[in-house]
C-alpha cells in the first residue's frame, strides 16, 4: 500500500479515536480547565452577592476587563466561521481538516463572549429587559442603543454559527452512531437526524452548507462591526472613529486565525493527527495571519496617526497616555506582540514552521487582548474634563473571571473533541476523492459514512 492508501484506510480510526478513547491527558485538561471555570463561577457568584463593586471599576473607568473580554472573545469567534466559510466559498482545498476545528472555536468563543454583556451588568438578573417582549410595564427596549444591536447581532451570529457547525457535523455524527453502541448509539441516532448518506441527503447538505457559508460571512462581518459601534457611536476621544468597523473586523479575524493555529497545533499534537494537519496548513494559515498582521498594523497606524495629526486636546490626552504615558508599556507590548515579532516570523519562509506560527499566534492572542484593553481603558480614564481623570486596577475577581474564560474555552473544546470528530471525516475524505479524480467531470464518489 502506498502512503496515501495507508492514510485512507486509517482515516476513520485516526479521526474517531479521540471520540472513543480517552487518555489521562484529557482528564487532566478537563480537571484544570474545569477548576478554572469553577473559580470563575465562584467569583461571579461573589460578584452577584456583593455587587459589581468587587471589580476594580470606578468613575470614570466604567468598563475594563469585562468589555475587553467581550470584544476579545467575540473577536476570537471570527476565527472560525468566517475563515471556514470564506475558504469554503472560495473552494480552498486545504481547508478540509481545518474547518470543524475553526467552527467550534467560533461557537465556543461566541458563547463566552456573549456572556460578558450579561456578566458586566450592574444588575445581571435583569438582562432580559433588553429583549423585546410584551410586558405589564408597557415598556420596550431602546432600538437606538448599540447595545441592543449587539443583542440581536450576537444572537443571530450564535444561531448561524451553531447551524453552520452542526450541518457539516451530521454525516460524522452518523459515522459515530454507526460505531457506537448502547445509549451512545441512541443519542447519536437522534443527533444525526436520520442521516443515511443518500444522494438526496448529500446534495441537500451541500446546498445548505453552501448557503450558510454565504450567509454567515456578512453576519460575521456585521457582528464585529456592531461591536465596534459600541465604541464608535459614542463621542469619546479615540472611540468616535469611522475606521472602527473594519478595524475591529480585521482585528477579529487576526486574533481568530491566531487562536485557530494554536488550537490546531494542540489538537495535532494531542490526538496525533500529524497526517491530517500538515505543515502546509500552518503555512497557509500563517500567510493569512501575516496578511492580517500587516492589515492590523495599517489600521492601527492610520488610527493613531489621525489622532496625532489632529492634535485635538481631548484626543491628544488619550493618545499620549498610550504612547508615552501610563499605558505606554502595555501599548508597546501590544505593538511588539501583534506586529514587531510575528511579522518577521510569518514573513520569512524558514521561520513559518508549525512552531514558528504557533509562537507568533500566541503573541498575537496576547497582543490582541491588550489591544481591546487599550481601546477601552485609556479613553475612559481620560475624559474631556481633566479634573475627572482616573485610573484603573483590576481586582482578583476580574482576573479570575478572565482566567475562567480561558478555562471554559479549553473545557468546551476538550469536551467537544470527546463528542465529535474534530477533523471533519467526510470532508477530508471528500477532499481525497476529489484529488484522486482530479480532472474527472464525473460526480465525485462519496466515501459513505457507514462502514468501509
Amino acid at each position, binding site marked *: 500500500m502506498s502512503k496515501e492508501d495507508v492514510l485512507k484506510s486509517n482515516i476513520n480510526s485516526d479521526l474517531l479515536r479521540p471520540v472513543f478513547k480517552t487518555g489521562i491527558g484529557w482528564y487532566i485538561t478537563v480537571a484544570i480547565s474545569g477548576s478554572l471555570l469553577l473559580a470563575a463561577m465562584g467569583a461571579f457568584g461573589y460578584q452577584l*452577592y456583593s455587587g459589581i463593586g468587587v471589580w476594580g471599576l470606578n468613575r470614570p473607568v466604567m468598563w475594563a476587563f469585562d468589555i475587553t473580554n467581550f470584544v476579545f472573545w467575540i473577536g476570537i469567534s471570527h476565527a472560525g466561521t468566517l475563515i471556514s466559510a470564506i475558504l469554503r466559498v472560495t473552494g480552498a482545498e486545504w481547508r478540509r481538516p481545518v474547518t470543524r476545528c475553526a467552527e467550534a472555536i467560533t461557537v465556543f468563543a461566541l458563547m463566552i463572549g456573549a456572556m460578558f454583556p450579561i456578566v458586566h451588568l450592574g444588575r445581571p*438578573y*435583569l438582562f432580559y429587559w433588553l429583549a423585546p417582549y410584551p*410586558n*405589564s410595564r408597557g415598556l420596550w427596549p431602546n432600538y437606538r442603543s448599540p447595545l441592543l444591536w449587539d443583542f440581536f447581532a450576537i444572537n443571530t451570529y450564535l444561531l448561524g454559527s451553531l447551524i453552520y457547525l452542526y450541518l457539516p457535523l451530521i454525516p460524522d455524527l452518523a459515522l459515530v452512531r454507526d460505531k457506537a453502541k448502547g445509549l451512545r448509539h441512541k443519542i447519536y441516532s437522534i443527533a444525526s437526524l436520520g442521516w443515511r448518506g443518500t444522494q438526496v441527503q448529500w446534495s441537500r447538505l451541500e446546498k445548505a452548507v453552501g448557503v450558510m457559508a454565504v450567509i454567515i460571512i456578512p453576519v460575521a462581518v456585521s457582528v464585529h462591526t456592531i461591536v465596534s459601534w459600541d465604541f464608535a457611536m459614542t463621542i469619546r476621544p479615540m472611540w468616535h472613529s469611522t475606521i472602527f468597523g473594519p478595524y475591529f473586523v480585521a482585528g477579529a479575524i487576526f486574533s481568530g486565525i491566531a487562536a485557530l493555529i494554536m488550537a490546531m497545533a494542540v489538537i495535532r499534537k494531542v490526538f496525533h493527527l500529524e497526517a491530517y494537519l500538515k505543515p502546509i496548513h500552518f503555512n497557509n494559515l500563517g500567510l493569512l495571519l501575516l496578511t492580517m498582521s500587516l492589515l492590523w498594523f495599517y489600521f492601527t497606524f492610520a488610527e493613531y496617526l489621525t489622532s496625532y495629526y489632529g492634535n485635538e486636546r481631548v484626543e491628544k490626552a488619550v493618545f499620549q497616555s498610550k504612547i508615552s504615558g501610563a499605558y505606554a508599556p502595555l501599548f508597546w507590548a501590544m505593538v511588539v506582540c501583534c506586529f514587531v515579532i510575528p511579522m518577521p516570523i510569518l514573513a520569512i519562509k524558514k521561520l513559518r514552521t508549525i512552531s514558528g506560527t504557533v509562537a507568533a499566534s500566541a503573541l498575537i492572542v496576547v497582543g490582541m487582548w491588550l489591544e481591546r484593553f487599550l481601546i477601552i481603558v485609556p479613553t475612559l480614564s481620560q475624559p474631556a*474634563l*481633566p479634573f*475627572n*481623570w*482616573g485610573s484603573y486596577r483590576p481586582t482578583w475577581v476580574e482576573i479570575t473571571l478572565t482566567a475562567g474564560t480561558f478555562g471554559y474555552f479549553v473545557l468546551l473544546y476538550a469536551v467537544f473533541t470527546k463528542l465529535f470528530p474534530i477533523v471533519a471525516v467526510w470532508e477530508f475524505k471528500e477532499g481525497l476523492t476529489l484529488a484522486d479524480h482530479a480532472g474527472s467531470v464525473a460526480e465525485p464518489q462519496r466515501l459513505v459514512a457507514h462502514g468501509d
Partner: protein
Amino acid sequence: MKRREFIVLTGVGAASTTLLSGCGNPENALIPALIPDDTYTPGIDYWKASTCALCSAGCGILVRTRERAANKIEGNPLHPVNKGALCARGQAGLQVLYNPDRVKGPMKRSGERGSGQFESISWDEAAKILVDRLADIRAKNGQASVAFSLGNTSNVNRIAAEHFMSSFGSERFISAPVSSDHDDLLFNGTGQRAVFDIANATYLLSFGARFLETWQSPVMYSLAYGEFRRGKNRRRGKFVMIEPRMSTTAANADEWLPAAIGTEGLLALAIAQVIIREKLTPNPVSPNVANGTLDEFAPEKTEADINLPAEKIVRIAREFAASERPLAIAGGAAALGDGESIRAVHFLNKLVGNLNMPGGVFEVEQFDPLAKLGTGKPIKWAPLSEKDGYEGGGSALLIHGMNPVFHSPQMTDRINAFQFIVSFSPFIDETTQLADLILPDHSYLESWDIQAATAHHTVWHADLRALQPTPTPYAAIASPAISPEFDTKQTADVLIDVSRQLGQPLPFESSEECVRKAVSEVRRAFGQAAEISDEDWKSLLESGVMTGDSKPSGSTSGLESAKAGDQPLAISTGEPKPSNDAYPFFVLAYEHAALGYGDHANLPWLQELPDPLTSVLWGSWVEINPKTAASLHIEDGDLVEVKTADGSLRLPAVLFPAIRPDVIAMPYGQGHTAYGQYAKGRGVNPATIAGPYWDAKKRFGVRASVAKAAGEAKLVRFGTSLPEKIDTPR
C-alpha cells in the same frame, strides 16, 4: 435574608411586574407613620426655624421635617445674616443630629480615667452624682474650686451657666483661649465689633482674611462678594488677596500676592506710604504720619522683606487709592500678635476715608437685649492655657463646647489634674474621654436658643440711585426642630435641675422659659408689648426671626478712636526670621474650610467633601511648592515627615503650585484619637507640631523641615492631582 439578597440569589429580580405582591406585608411597619394626630400630618413637610451652630456666625436655618424626622437644612430667607443661603458646614448639621456616634444618654466613668469606658446611668442618678460631688468639693475646697469651661455654645446654655456659677459662687470661667480676635485687636478690646461692606466696595484688599470660607461670617460675606462681582447697577469690583498660601478665598481674587509670611502689616504700611507720598487721597492724615515718618516703610525699602517687587506694591497702592470705594480687611496671618498688622491694614481704610461709608467699614451698632437675662456681672474669661487655672487638686471642671485635649494635646495633664471632670459633650471626644461624668447636651437642632445682634446692610437703592447703609437689629429664635433623638438633655436644663437640687434655683424653669423671657426683652427693645400672644409665639417659632426698625448708621467713634491710624509706627519691620538650616520652612497650619479646627471631623459629608483646591478628602495632607518638592525629591502623594522643634508628623505631600516656596501648609481638622468612627484615627493633628490654633503667634511663625519618609501615604482625592489647564468658560 433581605429581600434584595433573596432576589439576587433566586435571580428573579424585579420580575414581578406588579407593584404589589401578595406574599408578606412588609409595609405594615409603616402604618404608625400614616396615622395623623393633632400636630402632624404624614407626608407633609414641616419647616422649623433654628440657628446654625457649626460656626460662630449664627446663620438662620430652617429644618425640613417629615414623619417626625429632620431631612434637610436650608438657610432662613428671613434671617438678615444669610438670607436663605447656607454654607457646606451648615448643611451638614443634620449629621450632628443623626450622628451614629452620639452619646445616647448620661454616662459615668467605669474604668480608669481616660480608658474610654463608661456605663449608662439615668438622668436622676447623673444629677445626684453631680450634685453630691460638687457639694462635696465646695465643702472641702471652697466655692472657687469649680471651674466652668465654656466654648461655642448657645446663649441659653451660656446664660444658664452664668447663673449657675454665680449662684455657686465661682467666677472661674474658662474660654477657648482665642488670644484676641480681630475686633478686639481693632478696637483695643472695647468689645465693639466691626463689619465690612464688601458688597459695595469697588476695590478689596484682603490681608489674609479668608472671608469666603472661615473668616467671621462667611455666608454673609459670600453673599456680599457675589454683589461685589456682579451686582446690578455696578461695575465689577477688583479683589486682591495677600496670603503666603493661596486659600479658596485667594483663588477667587483677581490678583494673589504671596507676600512673605508675617509681613502683611509691613505691606499695608508700604501701601500707605505710597498713598501719602503721592498724595493719592484728599483726606487729611494725622500729623505724625504726614511728615514722612512712614518713609522707612517705602516699598523700595521693604520690598526685600515683603518679597514682592516695589513696582507691584506701588501699583496696588495707586489702584487702591484711585478706586471709588476701596476697602482693606485683615485676617489670618495678619491677625497675628498684638494687632499691629490689623491696625496697619485698618489705617489704609482711614487713609481713603471709608469709615461708615458705603463700601467701607462700619462699627456694629450695639444690640444686646439678652444682657438683661444674665447675672449682670460681666464674665471674666480666663484663658485655658493660663497655669493658675489648673493647679487642680480637689477641684472640679465642667466642660461644654470645648475639646482642649484635641486642640492642645500638651494640655492633657493639666486637665487630668482636676479631681472631677464633667463633660456636656454630645460626643465622646478626646476631652470627654477623660470625663468622670458625661451629661450629653442636645444637638442644636433639639435645643432652644435665641440670638440677638445688629445686621448691617448697605444695599443699592435703585429708586434713590444711592447706597443705603442700614443697621437692623434682629433676634433669631431657635426652637427644637424635632423631639430629642436620644436620652439627652439641653445643658441649660441640666443646670437648672442641679441648681434647684443645690438649693439655689435659677431665675427660669426651663430653657424654653429662658427664650420666652429673652423674647420679651427683645420685644421691649423693639418697642412692643413684652407679653406675646400664643399666636404670635407660634408664628415667631415658624419664621424664626424678629427684626426691629432699621435706621441709618451713625456712630463712628469706636472706629475713629481705635488705635488704628494713630500709631501705625509700632510695627516692626518684618518678623524676626533667623535663617535656620535645620528648619528651612515656615509651617502654615490653617483652618480647614469644612472641618474647621477639627470640631466637624465627625461629619461624614464634610469628610467626603473634596478640598476645593487640592481635592483631598478623608485625610490630612501637606502642601509643598512643586519647585521646593523637586529640590527635596518629593513627588505628589509621597509620604513626608514634617519636623518642628516640638515634634514631627508623617503625612502625604500634595504638590501645590500656589504656595510660597519657603512655606509649607497643612490644614487643621484631622488627627482625632476619639470622636467617633468618622473622625478617629484619620490623618494627623498639626497642633502637635505647630501649636494650638488659638496661638496665632506660634501658628504663623513655626519653622519646620520636610523630608521624604519611608512608607505608603494614604492620600484620597476626588479630582485629579494634575495642575492641568483647560479651555472651558472661565
